[in-house]
Every structure is written in C-alpha cells, then in structure tokens.
C-alpha cells in the first residue's frame, strides 16, 4: 500500500504542481489557498526579513506583541559592529490602543528607544492591526524625526497585504527613502552594491573579500551587515548585483530608474554561479585588469576547495534531492550546486517564484522533476515519498517532514549559522549535505530500514 497515493493535491492547487515532460502550465503568483497550510509567511514577515540586518537602525514593530516576538534574534545575519538589530522592540498594543488608537504609544516608544539607543535611523513596521485602526504612522514618524533628529521611516507592512513578496516591496520603499542622501564623492570608479545579500553566517564578508581582491569596491551590501549611512550613499555605485531577486528587485528598479544604475541578477551560491557573478562585475567595468584578477580569484578559490568537493561527490553521487525554498533564484543555484555534487534534483519548489523564475527553473531541471509553487507539508511529504528522495533542502518548517520520513536535511534558510555562499560556502554545503545524507542514523529509521519497494519506471529516469 503506498501512503503517498492517499495524499491528494487540493483541487484549487492542482495547476501549481508541474512535472517536467508531462506538459501543461504552472500557475504561480497567486494568493495562498485558505486552509492549505501554506509554508509562506505574511507581508510583515517579508519586510522584517529584508530590513532586519541593518544593524545600526532601530527596528520597532507597531502592533500587538506576536509579530515582534517570533523574529527576535533568530536569524543568522551577522553584524561587524552594532548589534541593535538583534533586539525585538514592539509597541505591544493592548486593547485600549486598538480601540482608541496607538499613535501616542508609538510616539512615546520611539522617543524613548531613540534616546536610549541613539540609532542612525528607525524603521517602524505596521502590522495588521495598524492597517485597520488607521494610525497615521507617517505623521508620527515625521514628528519624531523632527524632535529627535533621527530619521524615522514607516514600513507599510500589514500582514494581510499579501505574502512576503508584498513585504519585500514595502521594505524596498522604506530603504529607498535613505538612498541619495549621503556623500558619494569618495566612491571610486569601480564600485558596486550587493543587493539581496544578508550576511548569513558572514557570507557577505566572504563575497566582499573577493571583490576587494579584484579591485572593486562594495559601497553597500543591502542589507547584510547593513548600515544606514551605506544606504544613504549607495546611489554612488556604478552597478547593482542583485541576489535573491525577489526581495530586492524593486529597490534595484528604483536605483535604475532614478539614479541610472544598471542591475544584474547574480547568485553567490555554488562555484559556477559565484564565478559568473564575479566575472559579470569585472566585465561591466570593461577593464581587462579587473577581469584578469577575477579569473585569478576564481582559480585560486576553486583550486582550494575543488579536491575536497570531488571527494564528497564520489560519496554523494546518484542521491536524489528535494528542495523547497523561498525564492526561485536560490532554487536555480541549488539545482546546479547539487549537480556539482553528483546529485539529482527530483523536486524543486518555491514559496513565491514568478512565472519568469519558474520558466528558468523548468529549463534547468531534469525530465521528471516536479516543480511546485506555494506548497504545503502534505504535498511535500507526498513528493518525498513518491520520489524516494535522499535529501531535503529547506527551512525549519520543512525539516520535520524530512526527518519523520527518515530523509536527510540541509537548512538553507536565514536561520542557519553556516555560510553556504561563495567558493568556501560550496565546501560547507557539501559538508552539510554529506553529514546528513551519509549519516548512519537512517539505517535505524523505520521507513528506511526496510527494503524500499522499487518505484515504477517513470519518465524522470529516461532523461538521466
């Protein structure tokens, strides 16, 4: 009896599941189906994630306590200096404020926190409640800015506004208010911004080091190890490299429209993608010396890590992976990186991929691979069983699905504490995958300890 066949895809979601080689279209960019137990979060969460790493800013959540408390110091974004962002500040609205308005409390909270912490700026996140009770957050921010001299910026992020994606947009709007207000006179010719790099476990520092060696200055990492003053002067850069395009596309677009800075989508995950990103930046400036140095960096770095990775490849070859991540761009890189480890992606899903993203994902996946948009635990479990995967790559919410079924897991979310970006990151990734996939514990897991009934030949084998 196959348990996976018991799990049916909800009718409303049937067209959000697509198998390569079976034709049809994949629907995406739509609201989550009520009751589907989506893995997505809300607009507020999206804003909070994107702006969180700005370490010298005050981040205050205007609303009842829940919204602020679940993201208190859980993320892996590192700061080289201030640690203010790791706190959880909330207006903790009570019933009386919900009835009579929370403006007074917000003002008092902002003034008090600014005086105590002297931040470089303050971000004020609106939650569902604020969206409903109609507090004039903009006016409060203006008033407090005048009073304290610290710029207070509203982030229009009530949860019901949409998924994380709508929150990304609101965060970009908020961050953009700072752009263009700083001095750019000392920025050299060869200068870029890194957008959508959040310095999880110090990844931005690794990437910035590559650029330093090439001779390209990074004006601002947005928002990893972020600083308010960097945002103020980031319009002085000549190129925006945009990783995690879902979160930062809007800011990149504004920088292009209003400051004429071209953008390029890149990824710093895996050897191939990291190298392409470095070359893209070097090529942009048209200086052959930069390209020479970029090639040198790539050569040096790859020679450092390639032998070890080759070793892992031998041990991981032929294993099957499922991945479910936030944005599609990460998914592309993961498919490529897994391939570099000799592994095959049999399920690739994202919370908020766009049609364009999925188009690319479809192209790079092998026949038979299932692609799924805005999935849920039951569907993911179904595919893990159907495809008999050896490894699941996702975040904390996906981890128990894998573990309960005796499947290895690699955390590729913002909460992780291990750097997976860049050349060195690829080695960490291989280690992470191998540590789990090759662990002896699966031999004891009930689902893996009995002989697996061979799967009926399906077309995903045909393509390999």
């Amino acid at each position, binding site marked *: 009896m196959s348990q996976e066949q018991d799990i049916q895809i909800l009718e409303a979601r049937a067209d959000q599941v697509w198998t390569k080689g079976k034709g049809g279209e994949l629907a995406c960019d739509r609201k989550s189906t009520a009751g589907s137990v989506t893995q997505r979060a809300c607009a507020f969460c999206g804003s909070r994630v994107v702006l969180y790493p700005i370490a010298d800013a005050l981040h205050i959540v205007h609303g009842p306590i829940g919204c602020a408390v679940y993201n208190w110091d859980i993320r892996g974004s590192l700061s080289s200096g201030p640690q203010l962002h790791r706190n959880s500040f909330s207006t903790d609205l009570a019933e009386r404020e*919900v009835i009579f308005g929370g403006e007074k409390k917000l003002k008092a909270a902002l003034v008090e926190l600014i005086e105590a912490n002297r931040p470089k700026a303050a971000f004020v996140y609106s939650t569902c409640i604020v969206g409903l009770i109609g507090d004039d957050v903009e006016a409060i921010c203006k008033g407090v800015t005048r009073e304290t001299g610290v710029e207070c910026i509203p982030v229009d992020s009530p949860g019901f506004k949409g998924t994380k994606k709508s929150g990304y947009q609101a965060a970009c709007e908020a961050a953009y208010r700072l752009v263009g207000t700083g001095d750019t006179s000392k920025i050299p010719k060869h200068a870029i911004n890194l957008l959508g790099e959040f310095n999880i476990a110090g990844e931005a520092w690794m990437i910035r080091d590559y650029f330093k060696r090439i001779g390209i200055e990074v004006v601002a990492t947005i928002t990893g190890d972020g600083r308010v003053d960097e945002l103020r002067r980031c319009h002085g850069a000549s190129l925006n490299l945009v990783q995690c395009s879902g979160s930062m596309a809007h800011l990149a677009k504004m920088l292009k429209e209003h400051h004429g800075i071209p953008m390029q989508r890149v990824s710093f995950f895996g050897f191939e993608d990291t190298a392409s990103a470095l070359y893209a930046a070097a090529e942009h400036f048209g200086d052959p010396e930069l390209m020479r140095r970029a090639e040198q960096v790539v050569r040096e770095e790859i020679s450092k890590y390639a032998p070890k990775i080759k070793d892992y490849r031998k041990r991981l070859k032929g294993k099957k992976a499922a991945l479910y991540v936030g944005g599609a761009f990460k998914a592309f890189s993961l498919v490529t990186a897994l391939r570099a480890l000799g592994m095959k992606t049999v399920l690739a899903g994202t919370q908020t991929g766009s049609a364009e993203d999925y188009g690319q994902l479809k192209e790079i996946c092998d026949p038979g691979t299932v692609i799924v948009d805005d999935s849920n635990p039951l569907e993911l479990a179904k595919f893990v069983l159907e495809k008999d995967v050896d490894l699941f790559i996702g975040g904390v919410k996906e981890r128990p699905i894998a573990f309960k079924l005796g499947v290895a897991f690699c955390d590729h979310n913002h909460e992780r504490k291990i750097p997976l970006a860049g050349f060195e990151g690829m080695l960490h990734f291989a280690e992470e995958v191998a540590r789990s996939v090759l662990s002896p514990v699966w031999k004891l897991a009930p689902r893996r300890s009995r002989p697996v009934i061979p799967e009926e030949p399906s077309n995903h084998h045909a393509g390999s």
Partner: protein
Amino acid sequence: MTTTVDQDMVSRHGGVLESGAPGAATQNACKLCSPLGAAMVFKGIRNCLPFLHGSQGCATYIRRYLISHFREPVDIASSSFSEDDAIFGGARNFGAGVENVIRQYEPELIGVATTCLSETIGENMLGMIGDYQREHAGDGPPLVHVSTPAYLGSHVDGYHAAVKAVAAQFVAEPASRDAGRVNLLPAMVSCADLRHLRELCGMYGLKATILPDYSETLEGESWDAYHRISPGGTPLEDVRGMGGSAATLELGHSQAEVKDTAAGWMEKQFGVRRHALGWPLGVRHSDQFFTSLSEISGRRMPAEIEGQRGRLVDSYVDAHKYISGKRAVVFGDPDLVIALAAFLSEIGIRPVICATGSKARKWRELLAAEIEGGGEDVEILPESDHARISELAREAQPDLLVGSSKGYPLARELGVPLVRIGFPIHDRFGAQRMLSVGYRGTQELFDRVVNALLEAKQENSETGYSYL
C-alpha cells in the same frame, strides 16, 4: 570590510542591549501571543488540526517557533486573509479553508483560534461556525472556537482559554461517576512532564484524562509512514467523559485564583471536584499534588514514590553547601515562575528577581507567599520584558538564571549559567524530554541547578580542580 563600527552602539559586553527602563515600548518580550497557547492545546487533542482565522503569517510564525522547540511537524491552517478579506470580512476564506482542511487532513476536530486581525474587524465566528454546522448537518468534524486576540493577554491566556473552550463544548453530563478516573489540566509543561504526570496518576490506580496531552504529538516516534496529523493526543471521547471523573487536578497557582477555569466549570456543572494546585515542582508542592492523588484514590503514597521523595530530600542535604545563599533570576510563565521561586526558596537559593511578561491574577502576592521570609528583597516584575530583567540583573549580579533560551544573551553577558526550563528552548537539544515535575522531575531539575553552579565554579577557578 568597509564598515565602520560605531562604538557607542556596541554594548560593553558584546551583548545586545543596554537600555531598558520601563516605558512605552516592550523590549525583548517575556511572553508570546495568545494564539500560540491555543495552538498548543489543540495539538494535544487526538486528530485535531489547529486553524487560525487571520493572516497566514500568524500560523507560519507560530509553526516555526513550535517546530524549533519540539522538532516535530506542527501543521496549523490559516484562512490566509488578503486585503479584501480584511475590509469585507473573511467568511468566504473561513468556509473554504475549513473545507480544505477537512479534505487534506480528515481531522476529528478543528480548533479555531482568532487573531488580532479577525478580532479587530469583529468577525462573527459563531455565525460562521453555525453556517458550517448547517451545511454539514452532522457529517463533518466538529469545530471548537476560542477567542485569542494578542492584544488581550499572552500565550498563557490563550492556552487556558482554549482548554476552557474545549471543555465547555465537549464535556458531557455523565451517566455515572468513575472513581478510577481523574482529569488533569496541566499548564505548558514538557512532553516528559505530561508522561510522568500520567504515570504518577496510574501509580495511585487512577486513569488520567489529560487536557491537553501533546506528549506524543509533539514528541513522536520516527515514522514508517507519513501521518497527516501526528498520532497521539487526548481522544475527544475521553474529553466528553471528563464530567464523570472523580476529580480534576488543575495546575498553576494563579489559575487557582480564577473561578471559571475549565476545572471550575466542570465542578459547577457536573460536580467534579476541583483540586487547584501549584505546579508539582519542589518537595512542598509535589507533596500537595500527591496528597490530592491520595484523597482522590483513597490510597497511600506508593512506596516507589516515597523512595523518590526520600532520595530527593537526601540529595538536597548532600548538595546544600554548593548552592546555599546563591542568588537567581527567574523568568517565564507566571505559574512556572511561582513554582520555581518556591523550589529555589526550598533549597536555599534566593530568587532575587522574578519576572514574567504576562499578567496573572494576584501574581505578586502569590509569588511573595512562596518565598522564604516573604519577598521584600525580591524584585517581582509582572508584565515585564527582558530589557527590564537585564537592567535589574546587572545590578543584582546573580549567580544563575533560570528560564527559557531567551535569557541566554543576559547569561552570556553576566558570565553566569542559565538553567533552561519553560518555552522556548531553541538553543539546547531535548527540551521535550526535560522532566521537572514530581519528586523525580524535581530531582532532575535540582541536579541541573547544582551542576550548573558547580560547572560555573570549576570554569571560573584558576586551579581547575577535577574534584569538587
């Protein structure tokens, strides 16, 4: 690195926060929101799926927080409000959401909790549930509803409100009374605590109906097949029968001050005698718990439990010189803090700061009554936050902290151990299995406390003795 470090902003200790006078803002809250408490309760009923009526972020955040603590699947559905629903009401989403949950999960019960959003727009939950019942005319699973806006109370209130809602909806008029059955309404204890409490009742010949019992759903076995809803939890059938139990044990000092709790209601409605007790943590409060079990069962304390008590007291004596006069900061849920303060007082550790982010009836008085010699020298902080706790702790210079993982930054800053208990525990493994109730649980907690202090002493000693 091109960034400059603004020294003013970095705390002296590389820790997180310097400020923290009580004021308008809540800084590093010492509480969670009420739907989380309700979801915990629903996870403790067999084949029940929690459903939050509001934006989907609430469900997602709470799921992630619970998964990080328990390391188990925690599926919580949401009606996924959009902007239109926030304006025009979420009835359509609610209906569709419930149908999808039934289709996917085939639950025996759907536990509906509201959120700030649905409460503020004044959703008519009873009307929507009525619509569902009419449409299903008895064929679908029942829905139970609890009102949990986060702007009223904390996760602790959400927890108790959900227990009450489940009891009020399902406990039925009993045909007869079963002298061998007892109801147990615990607080947010660990899975190991729940199992131990059941075992203890069993040792007195009593079969316990525990509401909620998430000991299996949130600490399950490795599976050979996928389960839509984790196995375990109290069957609804058993909940229905709670009216016929011999008595109800309800844990939590501050709960005892509330009349219309689930136990209070069952006593009034069906004459099930309510035993309002503190957490059975420490010798004194465990004694009270076992006295209640004796009263209900008519049995003396079993020799095995007597042995546990005797060994616990013996260990108190053996270790007292290591811990006597030490000073602790305690934080967490109101009733846990009271229980810990009582326990620490009993073993000679002064709980110099006792804090909770929640609000509980007569908490200050109840707490002071548990502290040896009254609590005049003790900072008692209801409705507080970690910034305030940290500020006072810097002055108090305690020897240890007792509470959740959220105390770690302070422990690190002060260079003192943190004995982890409560929720969330996100930085250690096995929180589900940590036992701290009854004599046996107290023994484990006691050993953890003593060893934390011994380890600190050893670590800080220049000589590095291996014999202490």
